């Protein structure tokens, strides 16, 4: 089933065309990844879907209905959340408070409590540090918190912007394992990565984004073995 379908999406930033009309689909229950170099427009795509960036053309259809534009509340309410780039946890709030802000639009106290326990079961480290200011957590813990916070809104679709940014390889492995687990529990994942190697390994399908255009598409494995992708994004894969 088609959950999210982006058609010919265009975004302008102060006269510069960051997205020149991209189209892609995310099916229910999938992990879809957008890979690409810096400035390819990956983050812009996610910002446009979450309503944080103004859309200048094209359409975003979610569950068969157009998604409200530039209205982040409605987008979150509809079940799409964003774990933003660079984690952006609230540094002077405790871990627990961060999670509670993630559930801001929900009114069911019981459900929120249950989901906090669910996040703790995914990331036991967060439970150990629930009273600690988020700014004092390590980078990996902050990323866990960012993912956990995004899960607190009980999303159908969770969008992650570079969850591996600035993390040690071992921590990256953990995070990706968790992403797979979240997905297996029924949450669709739209993942954006520079670490194409790791992203393509867990993704069902992938798209390659280059300067505002989609240039390649295929299943995760197809892209992983594609010569062009190998040369451009999987420098490490050559050595294997």
């Amino acid at each position, binding site marked *: 089933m088609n959950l999210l379908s982006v058609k010919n999406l265009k975004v302008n930033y102060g006269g510069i065309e960051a997205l020149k009309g991209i189209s892609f689909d995310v099916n229910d229950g999938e992990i879809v990844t957008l890979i690409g170099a810096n400035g390819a427009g990956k983050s812009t795509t996610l910002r446009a879907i*979450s309503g*944080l960036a103004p859309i200048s053309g094209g359409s975003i259809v979610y569950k068969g209905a157009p998604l409200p534009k530039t209205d*982040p*509340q409605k*987008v*979150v*309410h509809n079940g799409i*959340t*964003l774990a*933003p780039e660079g984690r*952006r*946890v*609230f*540094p*002077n*709030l405790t871990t627990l*408070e961060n999670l*509670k*802000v*993630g559930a*801001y*639009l929900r009114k069911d106290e019981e459900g929120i409590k249950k989901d906090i326990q669910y996040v703790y079961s995914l990331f036991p480290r967060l439970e150990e540090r629930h009273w600690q200011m988020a700014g004092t957590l390590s980078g990996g813990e902050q990323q866990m918190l960012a993912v956990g*916070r995004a899960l607190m*809104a009980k999303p159908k679709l969770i969008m992650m912007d570079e969850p591996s940014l600035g993390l040690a390889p071992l921590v990256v492995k953990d995070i990706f394992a968790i992403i797979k687990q979240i997905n297996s529990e029924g949450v669709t994942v739209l993942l954006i990565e520079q670490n194409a190697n790791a992203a393509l390994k867990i993704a069902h399908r992938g798209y390659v984004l280059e300067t505002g255009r989609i240039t390649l598409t295929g299943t995760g494995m197809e892209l992983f073995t594609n010569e062009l992708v190998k040369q451009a994004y999987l420098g490490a894969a050559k050595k294997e």
Partner: protein
Amino acid sequence: MKKQTKRILNICIIALAIVFLYWLNANTSKQGMLVAILQKSAILAIAAVSMNLLNGFTGLFSLGQAGFMSIGAYVTSILVIPAENLNGIYYMTGVNQGLLNFRMAMANCPPWVQSFFPFLAILAGGLAAALFAALIGMPVLRLKSDYLAIATLGFSEIIRAVFSSPQMDSITNGSYGLKSVPNFPEMAGGLIPSLVTPFLIAAICILLMVLLINSSYGRAFKSIREDEIAAEAMGVNLLKHKELAFTASSFFTAVAGGLLAMYMRSIEAKTFSIALTYDILLIVVIGGIGSVSGSILSAFLVTAGKEWWLRFFDTPLYIGTWQAPLFRTGFRMVIFSILLMVVVLFYRRGLMGTNEFSWQGIMRFPQWFRRKFLKRKGAPPKGGDDT
């Protein structure tokens, strides 16, 4: 520490405060200075906490406090000045006829209704300021940081200019100000004497603000302060919450303004110049931006320091027959400013930082003191340079 112990300690403190206030009430004549300082501190504490709600918890740097206080002070004063005094006060231009009729109608109400009027007047002042804040908030709150400060400062000055303008003479008495504002009202038929009223109102206001800060709205405020984009991505409506914080803060600021008018017994527009905003900002910064208990503590310390404890610097000091230089009127403010600089240098984040008062904190204080000031005592640190 157990929850029950904490509760007992809290009840003890509150009981002590109540006993102390009633003792003050019985000894007003001897403790006049103390009463005046404490009342002013309580009023400024409301203003400081409401400024903290906006600046410290929502991250909106606003400098409009004096303006909102003046709205509260004027609305309250106009509604509580005894109706028979009105013609005497507005002797230059006469009272606005509508206002006079309204006040006459109020004076004709039965006495038990009239006993509520001072509180309703304070409430009316707060609501007027909240309405005004909601209106100017729509354009102003789209601005960020410094620009917001400049815009709110501008509005504050506009309010002051409007209140003192000749066109408003028949309502605000223009630049002559309003006199014979009655003292704080009694409550519950004298059970709560007028001396205690400002403390009770301050306690209620601060409690309401603390409840707001600890609610899910408060969490949304803090998330806006921390990271607007992340907050928006979590579904927090930025403008709605900024507007709410701004309106609530203005309401309580105006309540403080109304109480200030009752405290001073006469007001004029000049009282509510930018200097008043800076006084409140000073209290907030010294107490710690983002700490309610810090604001309350520093409201008392700053007021007492400025008005009372440093008074002796203003009077000439003789040691034998030698007169110490510098001790003359105004020297107190020099000392006060130096103390401020010392506090700001050594406690950059204010006395309390972003911490709140807690019994655990008090219990830990001796440990902390030992660590901080008596470090050299005891065993030398391991792996030092001298080994």
